[in-house]
């Protein structure tokens, strides 16, 4: 009897053990190390050398460059998330009804995800090139897309949005397929037109997955890296110096692991707070 109770008590944990084990070993443990490092100045090997306590943090908070990174990142995330979710949603809805060729189209919509961000950036780099780039040629412009601080961030953001739109399409499609068809039936008998069905049924029905997509998109946008590295390297000036790129630069380039670690921790905190806010909102807003 007692044994049975113990197993009953433990069984929920058994299901999460495989996941947690990997997390602990490869994420929590190293991240705690990172937090530790963020309290130090490091040598070129990335080893803690000089304890500075909050020194790295206060350095960051007095650095215009860091605030620029945060600001740029915020704008980047905003554009990426809104555009990619919109693209994903539009394409998912376009492919929600059956019509000839649907499989081809849905493949097309998901395709951007099949490309690694650095490969995609390579393609975009050529497309956006002011002289040989197809975009300028098609539009008859001579815009210097990625060397102009006005456009560079938008370009990187649109590239990322394009990349993410594929997986968002998949998520939304999967979400749509989860909505019970009889609800649509009832709604149409109730007199709801397509738009009303969309706003009153589809969107709420998608809300769990919408929430998921939002959270994941935000988190991933915050961590976008490959495209920046290939396309702009943080430039022009620091106009695309996203925080993750800045972390990368400090850690792997500038021999400042301490600062990079501190930025990682701050980034973590920022995302964490954002996510907590979203979960809080979910409890209120997301249905089911």
């Amino acid at each position, binding site marked *: 009897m007692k044994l049975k109770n113990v197993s009953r008590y433990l069984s929920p944990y058994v299901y999460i053990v495989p996941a947690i084990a990997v997390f602990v070993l490869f994420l929590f443990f190293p991240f705690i190390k990172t937090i530790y490092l963020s309290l130090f100045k490091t040598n070129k090997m990335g080893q803690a050398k000089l304890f500075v306590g909050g020194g790295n943090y206060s350095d960051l908070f007095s650095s215009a460059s860091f605030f620029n990174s945060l600001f740029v990142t915020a704008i980047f995330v905003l554009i990426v998330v809104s555009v990619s979710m919109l693209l994903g949603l539009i394409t998912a809805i376009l492919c929600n009804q059956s019509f000839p060729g649907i499989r081809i189209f849905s493949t097309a919509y998901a395709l951007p995800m099949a490309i690694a961000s650095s490969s995609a950036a390579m393609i975009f780099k050529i497309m956006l090139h002011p002289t040989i780039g197809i975009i300028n040629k098609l539009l008859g412009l001579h815009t210097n897309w990625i060397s102009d601080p006005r456009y560079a961030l938008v370009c990187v953001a649109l590239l990322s949005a394009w990349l993410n739109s594929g997986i968002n399409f998949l998520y939304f499609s999967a979400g749509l397929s989860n909505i019970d068809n009889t609800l649509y039936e009832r709604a149409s008998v109730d007199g709801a037109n397509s738009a009303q069905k969309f706003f009153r049924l589809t969107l709420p029905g998608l809300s769990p997955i919408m929430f998921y997509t939002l959270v994941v998109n935000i988190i991933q946008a915050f961590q976008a890296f490959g495209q920046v590295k290939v396309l702009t390297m*943080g430039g022009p*000036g620091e106009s695309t110096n996203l925080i993750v790129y800045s972390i990368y630069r400090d850690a792997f380039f500038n021999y400042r692991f301490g600062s990079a670690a501190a930025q990682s921790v701050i980034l973590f905190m920022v995302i964490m707070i954002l996510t907590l806010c979203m979960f809080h909102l979910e409890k209120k807003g997301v249905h089911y």
Partner: protein
Amino acid sequence: STQTGSENITESQTKEDITTSAAPVASTTITFWHSMGGVNGEAINALVEKFNKENTSGITVEAQYQGSYDDAINKLKSAQIGNMGADLVQIYDIGTRFMIDSGWVIPMQKLIDEDKWDINQVEPNIAAYYTVGGTLYSMPFNSSTPILYYNKDMFKKAGITKVPDSLPGIDRIGDDLLKKGGAGEVISLGIYGWFFEQFTCKQQAHYADSGNGREAAATAVDFDKNGAGVKTLTAWKTLSDKGYAPNVGRGGDAGLADFSAGKSAITLGSTASLKQILNDVNGKFEVGTAYFPKVSDDDKGGVSIGGGSLWALNNNDVNKQSATWEFIKFLVSPESQAYWNSQTGYFPITTAAHQEPVFKDNISKFPQFQTAIDQLHDSTPQSAGALLSIFPEARQTVETEIENMINNKGTPEAAVTKMGESINKSITDYNLLNK
């Protein structure tokens, strides 16, 4: 990296001994990390294969691609902590100071001296870069200098016979090129830290203090104090303000596309890019080469080299050490270097290679390459260029500030000041933490 060499012994016993003074080394495998992709990687693999086949000492070299230069040095850092070492690594020019300070390496000089190898085989202007305090730390391998490429057709159309040798010179012919030559832009000048360094060299100024970082670890940059930086940027900005040198983006190859596409009349680029440029142009127009431009007409300096060199890592294994040395010797042999040059467009680092038929064939096929050789020979070891522990960061800073200057139309002085401040702070930090 644990492959045994036993098969290779039996196979190589029949082969002729090509390494002249080989101390017999019983079946050793060494690992060689490099950052050569594409055609370069192909050439390296061919050389390695040849060495593995032909050496009689039972040495097997395992060449491993480790990503870009940046990737490779980072991996080296983690590997040195984590003990998955290589025996020989290829590191870029700006990693030199870092490697010297790291304490992981066996100075090349030591191997050379032990073997009584004649160091004079190496081009002195190239060796100079890697020589600090009289010690050659690494063996130059893939070296290049920047040169000026120009569109001969456009020059002809514009009626220009003298290729400009300075930035003001370019400025002077700008209008002709645009109006008569039919150029879309005068010069596609990529925003590249290396070019900035070269412009400093050209002015015979130091980039950093402590003898350009060669007498001791630099404590600050010098270009902000000796005026070289401001001069460079002023000339650059003049071109840019006139619209002759529009912003084509960051990096050494940023300007090449416009040139290959026949839009810009002039571009600056590495000598190693020659083949690819010719390939991309593919006869659309004639490509000419000239010396890297001076900043003002009366500058007397030369250019310094860039590229990568080979570093022997200290793994406390005598066998591996001598095997590594054998392999290096093979790589820098005239034969190998001539082959290397013909395949990649990097300099042959030994003068003897110039005698190899392969080299001669190549230079007759690509006469433009002679410019590079001449330019190198016209330089002096004094132009060897700076060593700086935080060079990668410094370059980024320089590029960022140049970009800002061009885009935000700030003054050259302000840009140089900002560069100085920012780089100096990093140097100070670095020196403090890595005593």
